[in-house]
């Protein structure tokens, strides 16, 4: 009975982000809600002792919105991803993600339920100045 109730509960975007972040913390600097011009990027990661900056836009259901934000993030990230609630990840148009080189995570409601379904390509549109500024920011946050 208890399990059934949990399954029917609406999963919040915050919960999905929490599960994802806890997974990504393993081996990465991770920052949340990082300011980029007029918007905030949901999750930004940088490999510990590495130089690759990745961004993730998290959504429970609306993958198109996540995609649009991830598209904009190509201007700052080395790699740009979207993360979707596993229950709705089948809705994502993988072909479109491939076309733009955007990666995809499937995230469940339980800790550790994270799967990388598609790796992102290296962004061709990355702005070196903003990329460096955000790297400095997240390493600073970590310190």
């Amino acid at each position, binding site marked *: 009975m208890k399990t059934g109730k949990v399954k029917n509960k609406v999963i919040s975007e915050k919960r999905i982000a929490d599960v994802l972040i806890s997974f990504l913390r393993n081996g990465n600097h991770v920052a949340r809600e990082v300011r980029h*011009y007029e*918007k905030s990027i949901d999750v930004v990661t940088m490999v510990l002792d590495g130089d690759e900056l990745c961004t993730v836009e998290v959504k429970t259901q609306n993958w198109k*919105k996540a995609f*649009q*934000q991830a598209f*904009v993030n190509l201007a700052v990230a080395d790699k740009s991803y979207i993360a979707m609630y596993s229950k709705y990840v089948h809705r994502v148009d993988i072909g*479109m993600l491939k076309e733009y080189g955007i990666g995809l995570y499937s995230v469940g409601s339980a800790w550790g339920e994270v799967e990388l379904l598609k790796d992102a390509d290296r962004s061709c549109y990355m702005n070196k*100045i903003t990329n460096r500024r955000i790297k400095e920011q997240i390493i600073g946050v970590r310190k």
Partner: protein
Amino acid sequence: MNIHLRFGLQKDKEIIRDLSDKLDGLVIPAHILSYQSAVISAFVSSFTDMPFIIDPMTYLLQHPKVELTNGSGDLRKSISKMCAEYTPDVESVLLAHRQLSPNNIPDCEILCKGVRNQQLSISSKAATKKAEKYLKRYGRGDSVTPRFIVSPYFHFNSTSDQWYKLSLEMAQAMQTICSEKGDGIEAGVVIFVPADKLTDDEIATIASDYSKFKHIILWPGDFDERTANKAQIVNIRKLVSKLSEFAEVEILYAGFLLMTTAADGAKVVSHGLTYSQHKSFAVTPGGGGMPERYYIPKFRAFRSLSQTDIIFHQKPELMCDCPVCENLLQSNPDRIILFSDEPEKLREHFISVRKQEAIEMDNFDRSSLVSELRDIYHEYHSSICNLPNPDALVSGSNMNGLEYLNRWADGISEEL
């Protein structure tokens, strides 16, 4: 075509001063003048040879009370001060009704006299002790008398609407008052026209009703250039063309599309500094500022800085070559981020480009502009149509790409 800047934010005063050689005039909203009379009067009168008008903002009286009051039920200060300058009882009338009907509006003559006095008050307001300190900072110029007096006006849905009739009565009353005063300052009108409801008959009625006025300002209400369709564009062009047979026509809250009505007879457009390219009746003054935006000249539109960043990295040829951008971008799209460090440069860039566009309008070539708009659509639409809608916050529309350029081309190419 002349560019008149609509004053909106106090922080823009310095930049307006710096850009004044690119501006042909100013539009000052009455509620701002009432609320900050010393600083605004000093600011306006500090210019030399800078024509201006005061927008009486009387359409605000049509808004529901709840939109004009603060949490404690009092009128917002700027509106309260403006009302007090117009007539002593308009504030109590506003507070006594949930929303005013035309019958609640004060007597035409009394309101017109109040509005006229307010618009002629720059000189006396700039002579106060409080204004003196601002004049010391800005310097003293000679801009104290408006180009013409703008009569009270209201939003209407059709020419049979009581608000239309009241606006016309106000305009006629103001014209009589101005000619009786005999000081050479004429009356002008704002026609707050519903762009989506115009018909040939309505256009003919408006033109006939306002045929005695030499200064007509059109405010195409609910006309968002990014979503306007061909019929709306053609109807606005027809109205401009008809009115300009007897009057000098100006457009309030204009973007590039409305600038092209220069070919139909419009002489002036006004807008804010990177904002107010479009405004509908439903919008009341106040609220938060707009996010910083960059005007992409080839798109004839603004995009957020985050979008501009990716657009320039995709298509570096879209980088602007105005002096501001040449200096800041130095042909390197990575440097777009520097605009967020110096947002005033975004405004300098916009006005610099807008001035060029105004010059283009003076040498308007319909067929080459139409081809240019269609070419830009074909070249760039597919690469940016998946970016978030840059104006969703303002318009709520689903438009993302450059579809509007095709609609503009359709509307502009139509023979009237």
